[in-house]
């Protein structure tokens, strides 16, 4: 009885996995061995190891790293202070709320704010620094990316801080630990899981951003994601696009292994 009903539930789900998880990944791998004319070749892989693509990969990783770093630096204190507030679940919800607003609209808002006559420039002029080009620079790209990923970094860190047993802090205090020592030796190590999860949630999408690079960075920044989109939708070179995708998947798996298994239910 149990066995039969179990098999019954498995059918639609396993079908879904086979069709939409396993097959697409295999197809990407398959296509990576074809050049633009449809010949079976390893040319794409050779091309990937030329300076053009290696430089792009490196800069993509660099931007993702910077974005993750800034998100973490801003998110950790935020999450920490949030756990100290009275109605912390409500405040957390308010922090998460902007992440539910369509991503494109937020990016679009920054077109106005960072534009030549936008709010940011008016502010700079008001304080006497003077207006300057903000949109289409590295700064605007990193700022907007951090803005977008911030809630995703705060959430897992908040959860792990929230689970922290407060008696441990008292113990550290009683044993003479200063607040910095307590943070370094007790709080941070115990919330490392949340930090890792947050970095994972931010780093992987940051590697593959593509619409922000076009809207905010004005095509100046090319990430792996931009390159994949370019190859698939503009130059129609699916083979090279797939090859880059294969490397992105490898990078993703490596990051997952490095940062450990993500805890369930963190999203």
């Amino acid at each position, binding site marked *: 009885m149990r066995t039969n009903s179990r098999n019954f539930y498995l059918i639609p789900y396993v079908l879904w996995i086979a069709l939409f998880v396993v097959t*697409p990944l295999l197809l990407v791998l398959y296509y990576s061995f074809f050049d633009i004319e449809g010949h079976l070749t390893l040319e794409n892989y050779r091309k990937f190891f030329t300076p053009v693509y290696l430089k792009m990969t490196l800069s993509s990783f660099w931007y993702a790293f910077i974005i993750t770093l800034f998100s973490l630096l801003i998110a950790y204190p*935020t999450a920490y202070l949030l756990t100290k507030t009275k109605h912390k679940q409500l405040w957390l919800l308010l922090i998460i709320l902007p992440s539910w607003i*369509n991503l494109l609209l937020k990016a679009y808002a920054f077109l106005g704010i960072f534009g030549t*006559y936008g709010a940011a420039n008016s502010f700079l002029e008001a304080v006497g620094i003077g207006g300057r080009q903000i949109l289409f620079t590295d700064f605007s790209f990193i700022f907007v990316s951090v803005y977008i990923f911030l809630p995703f970094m705060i959430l897992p860190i908040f959860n792990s801080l929230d689970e922290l047993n407060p008696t441990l802090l008292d113990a550290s205090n009683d044993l003479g630990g200063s607040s910095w020592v307590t943070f370094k030796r007790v709080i941070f190590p115990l919330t490392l899981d949340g930090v890792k999860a947050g970095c994972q949630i931010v780093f992987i999408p940051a590697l593959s951003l593509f619409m922000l690079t076009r809207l905010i960075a004005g095509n100046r920044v090319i990430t792996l994601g931009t390159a994949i989109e370019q190859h698939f939708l503009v130059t129609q070179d699916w083979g090279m696009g797939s090859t880059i995708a294969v490397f992105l998947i490898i990078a993703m798996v490596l990051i997952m292994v490095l940062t450990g298994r993500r805890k369930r239910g963190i999203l």
Partner: protein
Amino acid sequence: MKNNRKWPAVYLALIFIILYAPIFYLIFYSFNSGGTMYQFEGFTLDWYRELFADTRLLIIVLNTVIIALLSAAISTIIGVAGALAIAYARKRRVKNTLLSLNNVLIVSPDVIIGASFLILFTMIGLKLGFVSVLLAHIAFSVPIVVLMVLPKIEEMSTSMIYAAMDLGASRLDVLTKVILPYITPGVFAGFFMALTYSLDDFAVTFFVTGNGFTTLSVEIYSLARRGVSLNINALSALLFLFTIILVTGYYFITKRNEKPNGMGVRQ
């Protein structure tokens, strides 16, 4: 530590201001009678009027909502089946394999999901458009539903199922009268998550949508690339309102989730 208690509040306030500024910036300028996002000339509702007169855009909104509702409903059904399949898998290895495969689409960058689905749909000869977008949205929503429903099933005591079977319930009765009512909050949470994922998605849709069919995100992207136009602002104000309603609904459902014995819960 205690003598400067103002700084935490200032820091948190700053984070909140930064997180909400772009959204309110957009909404503020949606009432601007001038056509730009930097000079407020006077109050007007023209942009809203224009929005509601724009049949093409309204059809796109309708498309987006239909896709979201349909994909959320279908992915909820598959996801619940999947959660049941995972929960009732007897072998640990089967369970872990299913869970890992389930998480592939959650951690994969959108670009890779989009590109691989594009290959898949082209391979099986599916015309890009409504159906391909719908299938893609179902595909990436299923794992979310599984993750939302699974904990609910696992916390449910199996003795309830045995009791029902001892009392002569058929397999269908067990599912509809015992399991489903118990996991309803999880199912609703999964449905809402799937809904917001679908409404919010840009990257995957961008890949699998053909020429004739667009969703809101894709449309905003192409509008934003052409520059600022204030009916997008009006649209974003409405979407913000809608999101708040959705989030509030979701908040109350998860609240109910936490307190399964609360009053007014239909059993």
